[in-house]
Every structure is written in structure tokens, then in C-alpha cells.
């Protein structure tokens, strides 16, 4: 990456908490962050889809990252948020996170590539960012949301 004199050097990530881990989501994909609300269950959907919500007249499917990652069921608390991810016009998905912490700017030099020993077979992660003392797993959001194979 070119080290330009521009202020924004590197990418901005929204840091969220899932259990004890911190994950970063590229801010370019984030459309909105909303509070937990009533989710209408969709029968026969993939198990990690909790259902759909009504976001100002739009129907948006909501998935649980925890279930997708094989973690235990979400505990809905006051801090639980739904992050609305938008790739392009008309295809939004909400993902449930335990807590939204902050927005950080990570420079390329602070991101290390995923070590194959970590066993990220699904390609859910883009890399690991270092922010102060914290480690942030950077989600490859498109591979998290888009089902590669239906089984």
C-alpha cells in the first residue's frame, strides 16, 4: 500500500465482541447498527439464520455469527446489536453480535496474515489486526455471509 500523506491510511474496522474474542468488520460493508429486535423465524432456513426483521419497511435476514462459527447460542443482552451489512444495493444481511465496541483504523503493517495452523478452513478471516494490546480477528465478511456450498 502506498504511504500517502492522506489522513486515512489503512482501513477502518468496527470492533465487535463475540464471547471473549474481538472481531473487526470492514466499515465499508456496514450499513447500519441497530438494537436487538423481534426476529421472525423463517422455517427450513439454514440453522444459523435466526429469521428476518423489519428495518424501516425493508425485510432483512438476520444470521447468528455464533451459530455459523459453531459457538454456543447467542445470549441476548442489552448490549446485543444487529449489524446490517450491505454489499450492493438490495442485498442486506444482519448479523448478531454480543457488543459493538469501537471503530479502529488499522494500517496494513498492523495486520498479519492468517497462519494456516490456526485452522481457518472456511476462509472466514482476512487476517489479524493488532491494536494496542488487543488482537482483532478481521472478518472476511463476504465469505461469512455467502454460503459456499449448500449441504
Amino acid at each position: 500500500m502506498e504511504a500517502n500523506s492522506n489522513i486515512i491510511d489503512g482501513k477502518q474496522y468496527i470492533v465487535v465482541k463475540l464471547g471473549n474474542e474481538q472481531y473487526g468488520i470492514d466499515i465499508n460493508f456496514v450499513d447500519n447498527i441497530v438494537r436487538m429486535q423481534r426476529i421472525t423465524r423463517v422455517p427450513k432456513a439454514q440453522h444459523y439464520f435466526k429469521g428476518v426483521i423489519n428495518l424501516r419497511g425493508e425485510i432483512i435476514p438476520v444470521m447468528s455469527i455464533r451459530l455459523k462459527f459453531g459457538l454456543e447460542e447467542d445470549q441476548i443482552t442489552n448490549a446485543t446489536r444487529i449489524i446490517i451489512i450491505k454489499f450492493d444495493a438490495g442485498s442486506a444481511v444482519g448479523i448478531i453480535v454480543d457488543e459493538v465496541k469501537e471503530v479502529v483504523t488499522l494500517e496494513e503493517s498492523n495486520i498479519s496474515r492468517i497462519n494456516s495452523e490456526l485452522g481457518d478452513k472456511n476462509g472466514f478471516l482476512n487476517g489479524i489486526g493488532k491494536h494496542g494490546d488487543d488482537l482483532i480477528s478481521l472478518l472476511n465478511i463476504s465469505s461469512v455471509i455467502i454460503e459456499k456450498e449448500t449441504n
Partner: protein
Amino acid sequence: MDISQYLEIFIDETKEHLQSLSDQLLILETEPENVETINEIFRAAHSLKGMAGTMGYKRMQRLTHDMENVFSEIRNGNMKVTANLVDVLFKGLDALETYLSNIQESSDEGTNDYEDIIKQLNNILNIGLGKAIDEDTKVLEVEKPELVLPTSGEELKFTSIKILDYEKKAINKAYEIGMYAYGITVYIQEYCILKSARAFLVFKALESLGEVIKSLPDTQDIEDEKFDLDFSVVLLTKESMEKVKDEIMKVSEVKNVVVGKIDDTNTEEAAEEEESKITEEQELDSSITSTAKASGTSSGNNTSKQSAKPVVNRSVRVDIEKLDILMNLVSELIIAKNGLVSISTTDSSNKNESGFNEQIEYLERVTTNLHESVMKVRMVPIESVTNRFPRMIRDLSKKLNKKMELYISGEETELDRTVIDEIGDPLMHLLRNAADHGLESNAERIATDKPEVGSIYLEAYQDGNNVVIEVRDDGAGINVEKVKKKALSNGSITQEQADSMSEKDVIDLLFRPSFSTAEVISDVSGRGVGLDVVKTKIEALGGDIEAKTKLGEGSTFIIRLPLTLAIIQALMVELGSEKYAIPLGSIQTIEDVTQNDIKYVHSKEVINLRGSVIPLIRLDKVLDVEEKQEQSENLTVVIIAKGDRLAGLVIDNLIGQQEIVIKSIGKYINNNKIIGGATILGDGEVALILDVNTLV
């Protein structure tokens, strides 16, 4: 002049004319003497030419111009319609369609000149008129020279051709290498009808002798017949004056030719006059521009214009009448609103209560009507898709060497615009299948006592909230046993499955992707090429497809499509704590059924309702709704229909009928298509819409 604003109109109208051309050509093929048809084609070609010219699409203009020429001759009885001609005309039509689609995408017609078609057309024209043609039929490339005012009353009109510097150079060079520069003025007979065609032939003759470097008026105008009875050119050639004259005189309907050498003196003269003519030129130029050409295109450089790419919006043509109805409804809506306002401002009393309800009812009526009217505006008759099929079947018939006839009915059936746009390809696919694989060869048909000419039917009709399109043929039908064997041999099904499969199940195999590969097909009965693609497409439109067949008698593909995509009437039902919407169009009745009424057939629950046995579907099981504790003695059953098949959905509670707006639940959730969408209820809650077609 900015022509982009006319682009949409141009595209719409061109489409109409092309369609009319296609229709008329089909008629012409069977009735080559039909004068009315010939006139109609001539008119369509003429309008197309004019429109293309106005928009500055020169290639398109030239092609239509040549088509028009041919028909002008036919109209005048100078030549006859031949099968060959119709073929070439169809090719021309395809070329025009290509131009149009290019224009639609990029507002540029593209660079293909379709010289071969033009050549063929001209050959036919010449042969038809009994003239020999030069092997060199290369059509002149238009190089735009500057316009010069024609001077009248003079025989040697070519002297008024203004020779520009670079042309002077060319002339000088020509003399150096032993060529001559001649000025030629050609006079055409007064009674000549197609002057431009004559001029064209003259040009062709000249091109075979040498090089035409300049003409008056310019070649484009000559092509457009924008000259009186004479035109002049400057020719560079090695031939003698006499030879040139003879060649031109060979073209019929040429009255006289004047040839003269061009030397330095008269170029000089022209140069002197140049100054004084400029202003007049400009005037002339602008008048021509406004009559026939789009500005900027007369420079002859087609590619440079409109580098910006305006993407043409999809538009729907709407009857003024429909718009008036909409307008009326909107005014009623305003009145209804005012009624509510006035009630809320007056002091409340008991009387107001009923007045309020009245207004609400009124409002409801208006919005329902408004919805209907808006949907009607979006509706397009299916004709806009089916009208290209006769042509396709004609081509297929020739290509496959099978005699076949396409019968279309119900073209006036209306579908939502978005559906219309998408339905064309699947239908085409089914028709191709029917023509290619469905119908037997003519010999086989005769051998099995069938009429030699195969029939393909395309029928569209409305059925409740659905539109049904049937593609039927009277061919050999699908050999179910063969399909089964094939499926067994390629491992799609097991022997066990094969034994228990009904005929319908077997036919459904054809819609599986694995059956779409070619080597499977030709062995079976030919069906299945891309049927899975057809199915996917139709399901994406919210419809479904099924096949019926009778061995030896033909097969039918039935497509069922939702009438509208946006707003429907639905029955809201409750299952446990969840709410679902069932489209009203597929509901037949609602029945109260006691536990005792439930019978078992094949260990499946059925009820006997007024003589028909209807399978019961426990919706709570299908949808994995949490089970209720108490089982009530009476069940509420919603009877739904899909075509002639019925099923009863067991639900917990009826909420009522409601108008709902259908929204997509996005592409990420994968739910076996049971859920057709979602809607937002009055309280903001989301209710899912059941696609009952997948349940029956």
C-alpha cells in the same frame, strides 16, 4: 440538437416497425402476391429508414433503404417475391434487430455494415429487374465532401463542384500516374421512380472504372434521393471519356451523360467562388440537418458521436385512459383524506364514530382500486413476447426440415412487465424443444397416421391469481420407461426409487440438472435440454412448471406464473404464535373438520370433502412450529388448489383477509422455497408468505 431524448421513442417505434415487418414477411412467405402486405412492408421499411436517418444511424438507414428499394420494385410490379428474397429479408431483419439492441445498450448502432446482406439485396434487385451486375458490388463508402449549391440551367454542372485542396492534390497525383479526372453530370429520366437506385447503379459502374472522389450533391443525399434529375461526380480513372460515358449509359433510365475533363483552370475558378458560397452553404447545410439528419452526424463520423452512454430506461406505454382512471382515483383519495380531516376537527360525538368508519371504508375502497389500476398500468399483454415466435418456428422448420405450424392463443393475456421481460427465453426454449425433439420427422408422422404437418400450441390464459402458459405439441410424447432407464443407468435414481416412481415423478426427472446434458437426451425421447434452466428461471419469477405427456400423442408443458408481483390479497393465519399469509388466489374454501373426518390412505391423512379426497398437510409440522399442548377436536383446514390438484392445510387460527405488500426475504436465506416472501403487518411485525404451490 440533442437526440438522446428521442432515443426511447425511437427504440419503441423501431421495435414496433420491426415486429410489423416480421409479421408481414411471414404472411408474404405464404402469400407472395399479397399487395397489402407488400405495401405494409414497404411502409414499415420506409418509416424505419426515416427514423434511423433522423437519429443518425447511417448503417441502419442504408440497410432499410435497400430493403425499401426492393419492395418499391415489387410494389410497382417490376419483380416478384421469391423464397430467396424472403430469406434475405429475414436476415436483414435480424441485422436491424442487432443494430437496435446495440443502440439500446450504448446508443450506438455498432460498426457492422452487413455488406453481405446489402449485396444480396442488390443482387436480387438487379436480377429481378433483369440486369447483369458487376462482380464488384462493393458499396461506396461515404466520404463527406462539402456541400456546394447546385447551379441550374447548365449542362456542365460538374464545373460547379468545388474542388478542395486535398482533392486537388489527388487530381494532380492522378494525372501524374496517367489517370484522368473527369467531371460527369448524369441526367436521369423524368419518369424514373427510384432515382437513388439509379444513382447507386451509376456509382457502382463508376467505381468499377476508377475512383469517385466527389459528388454533388453528396453521396448521402443522393442515396436519400435529395436531388432533382441530375447529379454530378468527379471521377479519377484511366479509361477514356467515351468508355466512361458508355458505362453510365448502360444503366437504364439514364437520359444523358455529360463528361468533361477537369483541369487546373476550373478548379481555380471553383476556389474563387468558394468564398461567396460559404454562407449559402451553411444555410443549406442547416436546412438539411433539420429535415433529415441529426446534427453532428453529417460529418460522416459515426463513432465520434455520443461517447456518453445513456442507458435507456425501460418504459411502459400506458393508455391515456388508464392514466385518467389513476388521476380520478388520486382525487378520490384526496377527498377521502379531507373527509377524515374534517371529522377529526369537528367535536367528537356519537355521530362522528359512524362517520369515521364510513370514511375508513371509503378510503379502503379507493386504495384497493388504486392498487388495481396501478397494477393494470404495469400489465403488458403477453403478445409482446409471443409475437416473435412465429418467425422462430418458421426458421426452425426450415432448419430441421420438418413441417410444423405454431398456433398461439390468448396473446391478450396480461402479465406484469417484469415477468414479461423474463419469460421470453424459457418459452423459446420450450418451443424449440417441442419443434426439435417433440415433433417427429414428417416421414414418421405419416407412418403413424398423423397429419404430416406437426402442430405446436402456445396457449395463455388466466387462472385465478395465476397466469398459465401451456406449450403443447402433438409429437411423440415422452417415453417414461426410457427416461426411467436412463436415470437408472446414470445413477440419478436407485432401482427401488424407480419401482415406486409415478409417471409424474419420472417426468419431473427431466427438470433435474443432470438430465440436461446432451448425450442423455437424444437417446431418450429428446427432452430435457436445459429444462432445469427453464425451471430455475420460472421459479425465480415465483412460478412453477410441470410437464404432462402421453406417449404417441404429444406432451404439454404448463407454466404457472403469479399475476402480480407486488401486492396481493392474502389470508392471514396463525400457527402457534407465528403468523403466516396464504395468497388468496390459491385458496378454494375454508373448512371445519373434526378429527373423525380424517381418514388414512397410504398412511397419509386425507379428508373426503364433497366427494373428492384431499390430502391433509399439517402446516405446523412442515414449518417446524412448536407443538401445541392440547389437540382440539375441530381442525381449521384451508383448501388450496394448484391447477386441478387440491390440498388441505391444517392451521390453528384464522386471522382474516388482508392486502399485503410482498417483499423479498433476500437471496441468502435458503428455505426450500416454502416461503415465497415476507410482508410487514400494520404493527410492524413481519409475517411470512407461504408459497402453497410448493406444498401441493
